């Protein structure tokens, strides 16, 4: 069923993102990927039952390495903290995910929370994407330090984000709280301006 009621909080920025993006080999492109399913899981990964439960519900082994994620098909699990993970799934998958996870983990000290609305996703890609990230993010963005398979919680400019390295084209995905989304878009578009000029 298509949900005709939902609206992205930055729907008003769609055009600005298109105009602000620079295509081509030396470009950088900013887009929103709204409405992704996001489910937060709290639990004890040293408990085999927990690991098994997550596995049975998602088909994925819960990542225990800090700052990493695992993916299979259209599901991804982010490590967020020693007892916290976030499952990212396709649009509208959240109800199913929550049900499966709660079922698989019932009886354990866990929390499974649908947080699909708690953040929206921005994707920054292109040859200059890494340079744009470096302007706003205080983490080491070089490929040897931040590679596909890694996800961190940090800040871009002054917006808290979950930052996923999707692939090394590079593609960065930022999960940002909706209230910060317009600020972050404005900030990124401003930071991209020099590449518009030089392109």
């Amino acid at each position, binding site marked *: 069923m298509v949900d005709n009621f939902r609206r992205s909080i930055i729907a008003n920025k769609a055009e600005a993102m298109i105009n602000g993006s620079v295509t081509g080999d030396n470009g950088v492109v900013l887009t929103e990927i709204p409405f992704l399913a996001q489910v937060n899981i709290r639990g004890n990964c040293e408990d085999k039952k927990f690991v098994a439960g997550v596995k049975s519900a998602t088909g994925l082994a819960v990542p225990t390495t*800090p*700052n990493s994620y695992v993916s299979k098909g259209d599901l991804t699990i982010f490590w*967020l*903290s*020693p007892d*916290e993970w976030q499952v990212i799934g396709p649009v509208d998958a959240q109800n199913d995910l929550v049900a499966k996870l709660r079922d698989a983990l019932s009886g354990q000290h866990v929390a499974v929370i649908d947080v699909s609305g708690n953040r929206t996703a921005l994707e920054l890609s292109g040859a200059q994407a890494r340079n744009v990230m470096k302007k706003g993010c*205080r*983490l080491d963005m070089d490929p040897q330090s931040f590679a596909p398979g890694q996800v*961190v*919680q*940090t*800040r871009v400019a002054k917006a*808290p984000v979950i930052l996923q390295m999707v692939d090394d084209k590079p593609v960065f995905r930022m999960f940002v709280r909706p209230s910060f989304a317009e600020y972050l878009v404005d900030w990124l578009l401003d930071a991209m301006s020099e590449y518009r000029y030089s392109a």
Partner: protein
Amino acid sequence: MLYIKCPWCGERDETEYHYGGEAHIARPENPDELTDAEWAEYVFMRTNTKGVHRERWVHSDGCRRWFNVARNTVTNEIVAVYKAGEKLELPAAEAVKAEAETKKAPAKKPAKKPATVKKAAVDKKEGA
């Protein structure tokens, strides 16, 4: 800009954290049994160490874990980072340094705070 190693997320800039003050001040288990002065000791009094200071930070922008840092407040050198509930064994060299920092104060504290409170509380925390 301090560079602090979160025990889980790794090294991050100071701006990702919030400072949580002196570490190892455990909340008394039976506040009602304390005198006002003893309660004030818990709520307000701080060591404010010049030298290696054990303090708490929380990785607010990251994993939201509270943890402990032993930092030299004169040089900002971080001597150790350890998780909440863990004990810190200072490396021998650092222990000597820390000792040297406090050497200047040979006069020792009269026990302003009943040792039992602190001890009980500390045991509780560090055993946790």
